[in-house]
């Protein structure tokens, strides 16, 4: 061993006191569980993006590719997973719109606009946009 080799530890240095936190610390309390569930709604978001891209590919590749995509989407397991993912996607939307007034305070003159109005405007916009897209897709 050469003299230049550095020691792997420094002597008499105290160990940091850190409490070990387990993987499932958030299961013990309902608000923590809700927080983690809210963060995990990002997984259904990504899942529906993947399905959207697959749909675009299918439509681009022609009617027979679209038929194959439609058959896959009709599989009972697919419908079950999508139904479950849809519930969590709704949870994402609702928690997001409720958070918006807390993240951004809008002032009208000197007074802040009440949070409930901003959340209300978000929900109103959401329904309007949803009805618009539904009409675009179904009306031909």
């Amino acid at each position: 061993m050469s003299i230049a080799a550095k020691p792997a530890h420094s002597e008499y240095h105290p160990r940091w006191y850190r409490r070990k936190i387990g993987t499932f610390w958030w299961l013990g309390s309902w608000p923590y569980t809700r927080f983690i569930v809210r963060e995990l709604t990002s997984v259904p978001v990504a899942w529906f993006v993947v399905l959207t891209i697959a749909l675009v590919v299918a439509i681009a590749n022609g009617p027979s590719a679209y038929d194959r995509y439609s058959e896959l989407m009709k599989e009972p397991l697919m419908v079950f997973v999508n139904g479950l993912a849809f519930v969590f996607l709704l949870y994402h939307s609702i928690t997001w719109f409720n958070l918006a007034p807390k993240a951004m305070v809008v002032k009208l003159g000197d007074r802040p606009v009440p949070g409930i109005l901003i959340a209300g405007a978000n929900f109103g916009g959401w329904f309007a946009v949803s009805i618009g897209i539904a009409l675009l897709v179904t009306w031909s």
Partner: protein
Amino acid sequence: MKRLEEPFFWGLFSAGGVFSAMFLPIQALLFALLIPLGIIHPSYEHLHTLLANPITRLYLFVLCSLSLFHWAHRFRFTLFDGLQIKHLNELIFTMCYGGAVAGTLYVGYVLLRVH
């Protein structure tokens, strides 16, 4: 370096949160539930016409890309803070944002191919 990137990624996360909250549920309801269950049946021609419209494609590009960056940000911090997976931080960072970048490039390529 980290301090410079963080507001940028947070901006993408936030914009993606708005887009995915506004637009994804109705698309999921229509294309993943109502159409497969046979409740509504738009024709292939109609869907193709919709998709051929440049506005639809621009909209889908922005929606998919921002939603993926939203996922990347949230999922990274869920694994880090939520599930306490701290030793794989760099790998998780690369997988999440790398996935979002790859998804953005791929959906852009696919949307350009439609005609």
